């Protein structure tokens, strides 16, 4: 659409909720908003910070928000429970689930190296899930691992202060935090060992999807532009973010964090950005079902749609 063509009054309202409060990988949304990509697409987008992907899934299903940026595992679980939501795009096809330690203190060179070190993990949710699945895939037993349960907020401090040797969690986050202390992280990325989980994508409330299919399409396209801008110059994206929403830590940490996530994702310049495969959905739902976190036997195809992915 050419600049100024859609009248202001006709702009479609889109309420977006993120997975968490502002983090480096959210800069594309801010950029899209700032550069007017949404406005140009005839959208009136409001972006709300979230409180974990599980809550994001509930909020989108219940219609409090139209579109959610969330971890796809949570989206799948919600849809499996009958939540009226559809996943309309996945850009991070490799989960960030990993074990992270500090170089020189532990070596993480394969599943066997996890036997011995003290591992901090948050019970329930993505950590527990990835450990559960990983032990299955790798042939380890859960009882082989020395796992202590920790609040998400306590994990980093516990690792950095030496109370634990390894954290289970999001690789981009923890590796960048370790680097920021002047140490080198070591990471065991679970998807490298066959973990069939994926990362971030977009879920849309079904009512909204039925009423405003075009808006969803335009939203994804505009967001993709934001991703492209951010990926082109992560430092600038981080600087912009620090200005607009306050961001803690050195800029380098933000850049590291974002780059690590991009490394697990489809590049936004790629035409398949956002596109989902039947295979990854099949594997995801099968695996979740196997570990008892998905009771529904709905076919994998009912969880997602590629119709709205920008071409």
């Amino acid at each position: 659409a050419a600049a100024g063509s859609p009248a202001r009054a006709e702009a479609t309202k889109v309420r977006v909720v993120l997975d968490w409060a502002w983090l480096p990988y959210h800069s594309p949304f801010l950029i899209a908003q700032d550069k007017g990509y949404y406005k140009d697409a005839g959208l009136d987008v409001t972006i709300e910070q979230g409180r974990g992907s599980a809550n994001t899934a509930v909020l989108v299903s219940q219609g409090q928000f139209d579109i959610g940026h969330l971890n796809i595992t949570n989206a799948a679980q919600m849809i499996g429970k009958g939540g009226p939501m559809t996943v309309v795009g996945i850009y991070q096809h490799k989960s960030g689930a990993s074990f992270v330690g500090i170089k020189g203190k532990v070596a993480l060179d394969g599943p066997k190296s996890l036997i011995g070190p003290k591992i901090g993990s948050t019970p329930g949710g993505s950590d527990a899930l990835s450990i559960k699945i990983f032990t299955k895939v790798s042939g380890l037993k859960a009882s082989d691992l020395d796992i202590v349960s920790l609040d998400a907020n306590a994990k980093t401090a516990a690792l950095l202060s030496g109370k634990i040797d390894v954290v289970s969690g999001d690789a981009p986050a923890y590796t960048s935090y370790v680097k920021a202390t002047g140490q080198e992280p070591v990471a065991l990325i679970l998807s490298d060992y066959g973990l069939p989980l994926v990362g971030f994508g977009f879920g849309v409330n079904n009512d909204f999807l039925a009423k405003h299919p075009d808006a969803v399409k335009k939203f994804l396209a505009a967001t993709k532009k934001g991703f492209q801008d951010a990926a082109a110059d992560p430092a600038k994206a981080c600087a912009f973010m620090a200005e607009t929403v306050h961001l803690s830590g050195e800029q380098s940490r933000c850049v590291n964090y974002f780059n690590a996530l991009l490394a697990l994702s489809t590049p936004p310049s790629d035409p398949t950005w956002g596109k989902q495969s039947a295979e990854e959905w099949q594997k995801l739902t099968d695996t979740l079902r196997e570990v008892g976190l998905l009771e529904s036997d709905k076919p994998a195809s009912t969880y997602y749609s590629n119709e709205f992915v920008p071409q």
Partner: protein
Amino acid sequence: MTALPEGRPEGRLDEPRAPATGGLGLRTRRAATNLFPPLLSAVIGLGLWEGLVRWFAVPSYVLPPPSQVVLELVGEWQYLLTELGWTVLAAAIGVAIAISLGILAGAAIALSPTVDRMLTSWLVVIHAIPKVVIAPLFLIWFGFGVQSEVFFVVTFTFFPVVVATITGLKSADPDVLQLVRSMGATRQQVLRKIMFPSALPIILSGVKLSVSLAPVGAVIGEFVASNQGLGHLLIRAVGDMDTALAFAAVTLFSVFGVLLWRAAEYVEGRLLPWHPSQRGDFKPGQK
């Protein structure tokens, strides 16, 4: 006829009551009267919950109906009870420490303006600090396991006892204090024999608050760092979007909390036979 608040001791003229001569029949009726309201209230509350959930078709991942929670309770009772045990342990140890410390601190503050000015602000800070912020510190100081949980319970529950102790001790009758001073009482004796017993009804109200806070304190402690307990179970259930299990745990926890509360009330009654609030059989007469 309207002057009397309900619930005053028996024998009051303006309460229409069965004659006080009542034998077994009366007693049974009274037991029924005592049990009926809480049951009714439970039934109403749960009925409302079930009804609303069904009426508005609230999905169970948001709020499961009580029927489903009951099924979950029945199905998982062993798991739930085991975890509850850990929580109860930490809560009990923690609140015992908190009550002792709280009474000591409250006494020191009530008796000495200097201690008040030096200590109170820090206690307010400890009490009011959002615990998430210092949760990592707890972990680093106390490591994993029951200690940090207990410490959590202590920081969570000591303050009501402090405040109640201060108020209670400061309410002692100044004339009675003069009396025992003229008996040559030491400062300690004044405290032990007069100020403390006269403050006891108020202190116990603080203790009741603390006791009712202790289980949440333990659960929050378990959120931060623990491999067992109801808090751990809850974090798991919430993380796994297992809302029914989470609510089953909360229900168990609530029942435990209510029982604890009633137990505290019972102890209160035993400790204060002389207090107006406890003069059941006797009537408040003229002194």
